[in-house]
């Protein structure tokens, strides 16, 4: 320390004096060590407070996520928060529905600098954008608005290149259907938020969201494709308005193929018409006509009141109240055995059989086959059978040949399966059965009746109206049905619903196949007919021919038929390879 007191320096002149006055005068305290401790203490205190603040904020951020941070999280999210919806696959593992990550564009309006500019530039990239709507969204108060969902990578790149602030992407999972329209009615679709809105997507919505393992459907896409080709071919050939087809496992009631035409493209929900959306296999309720005579025959044989050889006079039409029941083109005009009633598809004969069995028995039998209740299957598109509230004699007669009772295609196919498989009725399903051999089913007819039904069905294809469905080696049996469609004022003679139901092979039925074609027009090739035997039977034959080898059904009979089967297998293989069924 200086020996001179500070005061003596006050009088110094020049630069030293100035510097002394500047830095010593109002008080560099002499007691350095005392004030130093206090001043350093203040620095230490400030540091302690800073460290506390840092530690607190650290603790806060890593333990609590406040709403602000959630906002950040949403903005900065790179995806991965979305739930993953389970895939749908066919019975062989072919993917029917899966997920793809696609970018979706959202905006934080509070960060948009110039709403008009942003909206204008966005519209230049996303051509189907509603300019006024976007402008309204961007001038809003919130911090989150969707601009457009499910963009392509190219669109994302173009938006990034705009360089506009306040725009963000979030990767969302979009449901994709690799087979598109082929499985549209079965698989259905989801809305933009991945909630199932139709088909299996809707009925299994909860399950698909809770599991990650693919859900195996009973559908076989090869069969599905064959059914679609055959039905479409029939529709085109006969200038029909619509059609549907089903292939069902006769022993397990698993649906292998289910087609409703016209179908729709699940990627373009806005363009789907009601006509396309309508599922003609499960939701559409139809009177299938003569197809029902086989149910009438089975009922009669099962009741024990009628034997195969019993005859029924079909010479004259039945007149009851103001109706007249007549046969197609006046029929045989003679007494017919039960066998002949089925062979020639006699309305008069069927009506007389049903009358003999009785109205109550008929109702009970049809109920047992499940034809009077909505069918249970994993689809939301389910129709309710329509039948007269009071079941009069005339109803018994018309229902015996398939008029006055409207059911779905699936109802008919499933009931037929129970009649040919030895008498066991199962619930139809779109889910692959884990252990098919374990399912039990309700007995609806005896094995003997089942044998007789098979005999009758085989006869129809060999000698009767179903010859066009014959496929060599596969012992096809079936029944035609041609119904005049019910219009508002009774039945329209020219609007037909032509159907054919078949099962094969008749010695041990494996599959039931049914095709129905709506309003086919007669053509020269079918000699002016548009009946089930001419329109639907060939389609069923085509389906069986194309799918039996794929499904591993062994052909029966001669070497010649084996040769033919090999040819069919060749076609089937080429279908598998090329995916093209050009016949």
């Amino acid at each position, binding site marked *: 320390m200086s020996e001179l007191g500070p005061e003596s320096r006050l009088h110094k002149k020049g*630069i030293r004096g100035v510097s002394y006055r500047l830095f010593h005068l109002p008080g560099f305290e002499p007691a350095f060590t005392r004030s130093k401790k206090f001043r350093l203490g203040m620095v230490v205190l400030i540091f302690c407070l800073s460290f506390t603040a840092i530690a607190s904020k*650290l603790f806060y951020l890593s333990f609590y996520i406040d709403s602000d941070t959630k906002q950040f999280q949403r903005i900065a999210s790179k995806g991965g928060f979305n739930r993953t919806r389970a895939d749908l696959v066919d019975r062989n593992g072919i993917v029917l529905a899966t997920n793809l990550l696609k970018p979706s564009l959202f905006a934080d309006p509070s960060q948009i600098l110039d709403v008009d500019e942003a909206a204008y530039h966005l519209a230049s990239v996303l051509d189907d954008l509603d300019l006024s709507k976007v402008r309204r969204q961007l001038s809003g108060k919130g911090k989150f608005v969707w601009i457009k969902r499910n963009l392509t990578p190219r669109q994302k790149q173009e938006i990034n290149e705009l360089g506009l602030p306040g725009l963000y992407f979030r990767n969302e999972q979009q449901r994709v259907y690799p087979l598109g329209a082929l499985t549209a009615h079965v698989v259905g679709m989801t809305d933009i938020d991945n909630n199932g809105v139709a088909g299996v997507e809707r009925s299994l919505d909860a399950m698909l969201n809770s599991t990650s393992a693919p859900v195996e459907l009973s559908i076989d896409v090869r069969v599905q494709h064959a059914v679609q080709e055959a039905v479409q071919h029939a529709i085109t050939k006969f200038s029909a308005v619509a059609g549907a087809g089903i292939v069902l496992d006769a022993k397990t009631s698993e649906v292998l193929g289910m087609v409703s035409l016209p179908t729709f493209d699940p990627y373009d929900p806005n363009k789907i018409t009601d006509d396309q959306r309508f599922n003609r296999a499960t939701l559409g309720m139809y009177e299938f006509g003569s197809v029902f005579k086989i149910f009438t025959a089975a009922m009669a044989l099962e009741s024990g009141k009628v034997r195969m050889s019993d005859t029924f006079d079909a010479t004259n039409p039945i007149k009851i109240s103001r109706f007249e029941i007549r046969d197609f083109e006046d029929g045989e005009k003679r007494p017919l055995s039960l066998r002949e009633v089925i062979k020639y598809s006699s309305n008069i004969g069927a009506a007389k059989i049903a009358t003999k069995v009785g109205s109550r028995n008929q109702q009970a039998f049809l109920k047992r086959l499940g034809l009077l209740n909505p069918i249970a299957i994993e689809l939301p598109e389910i129709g309710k059978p329509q039948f007269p509230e009071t079941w009069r004699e005339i109803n018994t007669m018309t229902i015996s040949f398939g008029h006055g009772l409207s059911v779905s295609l699936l109802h008919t196919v499933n009931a037929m399966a129970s009649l040919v498989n030895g008498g066991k009725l199962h619930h139809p399903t779109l889910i692959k059965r884990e252990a098919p051999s374990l399912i039990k089913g309700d007995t609806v007819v005896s094995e003997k009746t089942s044998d007789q039904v098979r005999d009758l069905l085989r006869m129809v294809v060999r000698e009767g109206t179903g010859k066009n469905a014959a496929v060599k080696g596969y012992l096809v049996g079936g029944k035609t049905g041609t119904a005049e469609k019910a219009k508002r004022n009774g039945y329209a003679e020219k609007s037909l619903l032509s159907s054919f139901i078949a099962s094969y092979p008749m010695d041990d039925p494996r599959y039931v196949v049914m095709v129905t074609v709506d309003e086919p027009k007669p053509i020269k090739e079918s000699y002016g007919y548009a009946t089930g035997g001419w329109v639907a039977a060939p389609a069923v034959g085509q389906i069986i021919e194309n799918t039996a080898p794929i499904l591993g059904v062994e052909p029966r009979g001669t070497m010649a038929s084996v040769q033919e089967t090999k040819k069919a297998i060749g076609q089937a293989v080429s279908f598998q390879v090329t995916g093209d069924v050009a016949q």
Partner: protein
Amino acid sequence: MQTVPRTDRSIVGHWWWTVDRWTLACLLLMLAFGGLLSFAASPAIAERIGLTSFGLAQRHLIFLPLATIAMAIVSVLSVRLVRRIAILGFLASLLFSVLVLVAGTEMNGATRWIGVLGFSLQPSEFMKPCFAIVAAWLFTLQKETPSVPGNLISFLLFGLVVTLLILQPDLGQTLLIAAVWGMQLVLAGLSIYWVAGLVMAGAVGMVFAYTLLPHVKTRIDIFLDPAGNDAYQVTQSILSFSKGGLFGRGPGEGSIKSALPDAHADFVFAVIGEEFGAIACFIIVFLVMIVVLRGFLRMMKEEDFFITLAASGILLQFGLQAVINMSSSLNLIPTKGMTLPFISYGGSSLLAMAFGMGAVLAFTRRRPSPRFSHFVP
């Protein structure tokens, strides 16, 4: 510790028994963590600027042993020798700071780097510890020999340094140097009214900076309302702490480093938070806290005027840089480009800080007599 007997009077033995081993351990831990982190944080940046994945990490690993050795050597030296080096270093960094303005490399709108022997050097980093020591020396001179206008010279040098830094411009370093010099002035015995006056002047300066410098204004605006402005960096930074949670997502698993251009330097704390978790962050805070508080508490007992001022200045620089860096990452204060000492990537910052903390270690070594003349540089 048993391997070095207390009676060992060799340089190493003497050093071992006199150096502050706790502080040394903390600093070495921080250096090690910085090396580890350079592998996690820098590859994303290295790839972006066209280097190989571990190009930046390799550079950091070259500087790491250099820094450690430099710190060790400086900590062995005598107070006088350290001061001489600092004076030379200060003069050199002044020279380079002028050169930077003439022939520097411009990056992100500021000219702070100059190429020396194949490395880009940031003179302002070396200026900070050297100026702290020089200023402390000048204050001491005036105190011990009032005929020497040390305070005035120190004030003039401070003005020169601030001018050079503002010209770059480097507001962060300016504020830091001002804070260090201001604290040294206060410790040197400035009257409490002057202290209040300086604080006021600082506040007015901040207001001027806010109104006159546009980039300062945006940063403060962003701080006040992170969601409303283009607070991309802060948003990402805060998010990374939430993502990391307590234990982090694992080394290399973070995403902030690919989202932020400065993840390896200014936002390295956010990378730690995301990849190593809040516990690792707490450990870093704790290490810094030990070094700073231990140093200052020691200074309270220090009787030598020069050592008190010089060591406190460097400790303040170290602590303030760490606190500003961590607080920016946590959105406690406006974003300010400031490296996290010993952990952030950056050769100049690492070497300069190693010299500074080496000096602190040298100053805080136990010595028999605190009395020796500071008149000789």
